[in-house]
Every structure is written in C-alpha cells, then in structure tokens.
C-alpha cells in the first residue's frame, strides 16, 4: 500500500465508522499523556518597599517524561538581587559611619535613619536535575542534584525520595532525604562572631571562608479521605551545622542613653553553629463540583527557640476547562530566637550568641494574592500578583533614645510573576 494513500484511507475509514454508528460525535478524541516534553518558564519580580531588596528572577525548567512513567527534569534559575538591606545596627541621633564589608571603603547613615547597607547586589545562578522512576505499579523513587552559585556563596546538594502506594492507592507513604554542603566566602572574609566591625583596611575581626552542611529528612503520608478530599500529613527534620551567621549583620552596643558606645560600637552577629528544626505539616484538599480548595497548617520549632505557625489557603475557581482564578491567603507568625537582640547594652555581660536579624525576631506576616491562568493551544499562560506585609517586634524594654524609634519597621513587598508552560 502506498504511503500517500494513507491519508485518504483514514478519511474513508472514518466515513465507514460513521455509517456503522449512525453519526459521529461532535467531540474528537482528547487524549494526552504524561510522556513527552514540557517546558515551564517564568519571570518573577519581588520588590520590597522603601527601595529595599529587589529580586528579578528568571526560571526555566524542562521535563521529559517517558511511557513507563520515568521522568528527567532540570531547571535553571537566574536571580538578580539589588537594593539595600538592614545591617542590624540601630538608628541614633547622629550620623553613623560603617565600613563596607570588603574593608575597602565606608558609607554613612544620616541621623535618625535606619542603617541599611546599599551595596547589596548579587547575581545567583541555580541549577537542579532530577530523575524519577516507577518501581512496578505501586512504588516510585527519585534522585536529584542541586547547585547554586553567587558571588559569596556556593551550594551543592543531593536528594532522594521514595513513595509507596497502599490500600488500593488510597494511601501513599513518602520518605525523602537531602544533603547539602554550602561554602561561604563573604566579601572581605567571614567575620568572627561578636567581634567588632573595624575600620578600613583592618581585617582583624575576619577570617577566610567557611562552610555549612544541612541534612533534611521527611516522612509523609497522603490519604484519600473521601471521594472529594485528600489529606497530606508530614514530619520534617532538618539539621544544619557549621557557619550559620549572616556575615553582613551587625549589632549596636548602646550606652544607658541608647546611643552607640565607644570606638567600635558595632559587633558582628553570632549564631550557634548548629540548628535542629522540626516541622509538622498538614494539608487538606477538597474538590467541589467545579472548584477546589486547599488549606494547610504548618508548625515548626527549633533549638534556637523559634516556634512558628503558618496557615495557608488557596481556592481554585475554574471558570471553564481552560481558565481559572486562584485567590491565595497566608498568615505566618513566629516567636523570636532565644539569642535575638535588637541591640546590646554596654556594661552587661556579652551573650554567647546574639543577632539582630529581623528574620529571627518575633514577627507576623500576611500574604494575599491572586493567580490567573489560561490554557490555549499554544500552552498555558499564568500571572500572579501578591502583597506581603510583615511586622516584627524588637526586644522588650527600650533604652533611652531607642524608645523614640521604630527599631524593626514593617516590611511590605509586591510579588509579580508571569509564566508560560508548554507541552510538546
């Protein structure tokens, strides 16, 4: 049979089938499958208010799936970070002078202003690769590698996971682990904890580079609860060891009037060199006739004294088969780390560890956003817009002048993302 005849043969067969069944249905077949290529590209903008940190992130991911269920995926992310970040020092009623982290240069902060380091500028490249493979009908495993590099930081990690379905696929058990080894090579060297920030050209408070390692373990279960709902429960344990400081964060030592004291009033922060974190996560997903809802709660605690609660909800409102709108709301609250200090007081015993990083403070944060997605024959387009607001409390009991400042001002940010997914 000639190849060129095939096309007309198909038409004749379809016509014959039409004769058999009386009429042909209006819908053609719509069969898809996991197998094939998928690309996912997104551009994300994260901008903090008051020209603090801005991150523009471009991510592209490529996935190839095969008929047997195995999958190879990889992603590349480019981040460009710019802006100013709080140094951790407190404002005062005179001009303050700080040495740049490189030790080559200075910058000044006006009186009554929050000290921000405006040299914050970095480009980050991150790569991931994953392989997923079914083991028979009810089991799957996956392995992955992660790598990222930026000017002063390099991350290398490996991870593995295993899933097993039970109970006629109504229950899935997951276990996973990840190991990462990161090297830190801060501009001008890694500061020694609670040593003073020195003037230009004096590196006596700094050492060379340092490193940390992190092990993460996960055990989780997904249970089909009813025809419409699913429950996810998991426990995670994470243990980090090594250099866990933020090398660019300072604490101000103040006198009893609340003003910086002495020649070197700024000390580099110092955190413990180990952190063990436990997390409990639960998520409930419910399918309505058209729409779906996901609600989750996460509780985390660590041996730094931080306890946090996260409540999150998403409602997917399907307009039709191709279009949906998804409002998103998230609330986060945490208690301060045991060693969180907004500043240190002269004359008091120096603590073993101290950090004024607002991310370790007693804080609350809200995120509210909405996502819109539309599928076309050319792929799926999506757009997301979110608003983030965080408020934090300084350590209790202000000293003198410091009572007049908002030592940990609220932070707001806008997050915008556009994405495009294509199957081919």
């Amino acid at each position, binding site marked *: 049979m000639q190849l060129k005849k095939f096309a007309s043969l198909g038409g004749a067969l379809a016509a014959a089938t039409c004769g058999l069944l009386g009429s042909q249905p209006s819908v*053609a077949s719509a069969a898809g499958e996991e197998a094939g290529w998928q690309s996912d590209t997104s551009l994300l903008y994260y901008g903090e208010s008051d020209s603090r940190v801005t991150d523009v992130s471009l991510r592209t991911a490529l996935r190839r799936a095969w008929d047997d269920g195995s999958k190879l995926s990889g992603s590349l992310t480019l981040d460009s970070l710019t802006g100013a970040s709080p140094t951790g020092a407190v404002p005062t009623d005179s001009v303050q002078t700080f040495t740049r982290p490189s030790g080559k240069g200075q910058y000044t902060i006006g009186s009554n202003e929050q000290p921000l380091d405006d040299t914050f500028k970095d480009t980050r490249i991150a790569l991931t690769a994953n392989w997923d493979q079914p083991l028979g009908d009810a089991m799957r495993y996956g392995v992955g590698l992660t790598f990222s590099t930026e000017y002063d930081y390099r991350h290398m990690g490996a991870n593995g996971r295993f899933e097993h379905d039970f109970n006629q696929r109504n229950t899935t058990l997951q276990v996973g682990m990840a190991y990462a080894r990161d090297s830190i090579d801060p501009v001008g060297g890694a500061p020694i904890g609670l040593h003073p920030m020195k003037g230009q050209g004096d590196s006596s408070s700094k050492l060379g580079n340092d490193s940390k390692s992190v092990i993460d373990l996960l055990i989780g279960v997904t249970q089909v609860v009813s025809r419409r709902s699913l429950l996810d429960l998991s426990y995670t344990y994470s243990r980090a060891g090594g250099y866990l400081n933020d090398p660019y964060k300072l604490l101000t030592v103040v006198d009893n009037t609340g003003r910086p004291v002495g020649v070197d009033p700024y000390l580099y922060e110092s955190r413990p060199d180990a952190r063990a974190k436990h997390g409990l996560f639960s998520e409930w997903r419910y399918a309505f006739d058209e729409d779906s809802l996901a609600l989750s709660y996460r509780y985390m605690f660590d041996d730094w004294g931080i306890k946090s609660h996260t409540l999150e909800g998403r409602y997917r409102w399907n307009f039709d088969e191709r279009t949906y709108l998804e409002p998103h709301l998230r609330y986060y609250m945490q208690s301060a780390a045991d060693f969180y200090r907004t500043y240190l007081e002269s004359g008091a015993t120096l603590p073993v560890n101290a950090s004024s990083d607002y991310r370790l403070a007693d804080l609350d944060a809200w995120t509210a956003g909405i996502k819109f997605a539309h599928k076309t024959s050319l792929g799926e387009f999506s757009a997301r817009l979110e608003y983030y607001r965080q408020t934090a409390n300084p350590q209790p009991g202000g000293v003198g002048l410091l009572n007049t400042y908002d030592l940990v001002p609220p932070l707001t940010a806008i997050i915008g993302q556009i994405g495009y997914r294509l199957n081919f």
Partner: protein
Amino acid sequence: MSKPELPSRELTLHRSARHWDGHFTAMANPCEVLCQCDDAATAREMTRRAAEEAWRIESKFSRYRPEGVVFAINNAGGRSTVLDEESARLIAYGDELWRLSEGRFDITSGVLRRAWRFEPGAIPPDPARVGELLQSIGWSKAHWHPPNLTLPAGMEIDLGGIGKEYAVDRAVEMLNAGWPQIPALVNFGGDLRVSGPVPREGAWNVGIESPVSAEQAARAVQLSAGALATSGDARRHIWANGRRYGHILDARTGWPTPGAPRSVTVAAATCSLAGTFSTLAMLLGTDAEAFLASQNVRYWCLR
C-alpha cells in the same frame, strides 16, 4: 465473542476514591463502567444499562449463539439470509474495511483459528494447513446485496474484530442519552470511551498495559474525551523459530504481517474508529507508524 460458554451475568459495584466502579463480564472480557456520580443507585443503573447493551450485542453477533444472526448466516448452508438493519450496518462496515484494507481485514477469516493457537507453548501452524483454510476465506466470494447476505457453504463470518469496539460505542450512546451530565468511562477489555462531561480531575487516567510484560508499569494516558482502542497484546502471541507471531492475521496470507508492531493503541473520536485504525496499523506491518502519523490521531506503537 470467542468463547462458547455462557458468561456470568453478574454485576458488581465498588466505590473507589473518585468514582463508582461497576464490573461485569461480556464477550469473554472483563468490562467496567466508571461513573462519577454521588449515589450508588445511579452508578448501578448506568452499569446495568451498559452491561445489557454489551450482552445484547454479544448474543446477537456471537458465532455460538443459535439465536444470533451470525450463527444463522454461518449455518445457512449456502442459502441467503435477510439481515436486520443493525446487522446489515455491521456487515456493510466489514465490507468497507475489507475493501479499504485491500483484503487484509476480512470478516470471513475467523476460520484461521482452527490452525492458529496462541496459548503459551503453542507452535505456528503447518503452512499447508493455513493454505487449506485460505480456500474458505475471501469476502469476494460472499454475495452481499444489502440486506441479503449469502455465504458459500463452508465459509463463516466472525465479527469479533469489530464487535467489542462497536459495543463500547453503543454503551456510551446509552449512557449519553440517559445520563448526559454524569462523567463516565466505558471500558470493555481495554477498549474504552468517555461518556458525558469531562471528569472533575480534568481527564480519566487510563493505564495501557505494557505489551512487553505484565510486570512492567502501565503507561498512563489522560483521556478527557473520545476513545482508545488497542490491537495486539502481551499474551496472545507465540514465539517460534526465533520470531514472534502475533494474533492479528492478514486474511490474504493467513499469517501475521511481517514487521507488525507488538501492539498499537489509538485515540479517536469513537472506539470503532480507534479500533479500526489500530487493527489496520497492525496489518500494515512496517508501515504502521507511517499510516498512523498521516491520520492526525494520537497513537502509541510498541515494537
């Protein structure tokens, strides 16, 4: 339509995570109807409607049922049989497939089962025996003047090649007519079709059995509309003299087409069309992919 014993006409219903799962046996195949409705009574009624249609078609077109049309045609002893409208449509369809496949597909080729066995350990038939059977094969020897069909004595027709897919399409018509708002999937022995609207998950997740081995993971196909049919399968083949003999036989030679894939699955609007494409692809041997690629359908060809 290939086993003489009467099938059990039991119907069972199970609840699974996202739908009701109705089961029964028809045409010697396990059949299921998945219904995405809330109550068991509706699901049972839908399964029953599909099962009754499958059993009706099985009785009417089985070679073994004396009350059926095919039995009457095959046992007419050279005399003419006047066919009812539905039987005439099926025969006309077989006639078209024979013409379009240039004789590769032939509803009179069922007698080849007397020579071929596909059980484990079976061996290919004696070529002389196949040659002998070819004498009683050939649609061109039948006299088809709709609605009258006359077969020369000793010849038989077998609608096994099209009956199961036809039954799936008929069952879906029943469900679409009775429960147009309920997403359902009708699956008769691996040939299947979607009924009603798109299910809540967006598509039915259909596993196609791997033809290589039963242990190997099934491939997952997401089907939101239309039908899937598969020709060729893991078990119905034999190995001999270092080559594989599949059970789809070319009616012109009595042997499997050289270079045929192990299995072909096609997605099309109806199960009958999908089954016709997949069977013809098998009969085209090495040209299977070229044929399917020119049809603008999704297909999965395994070699």
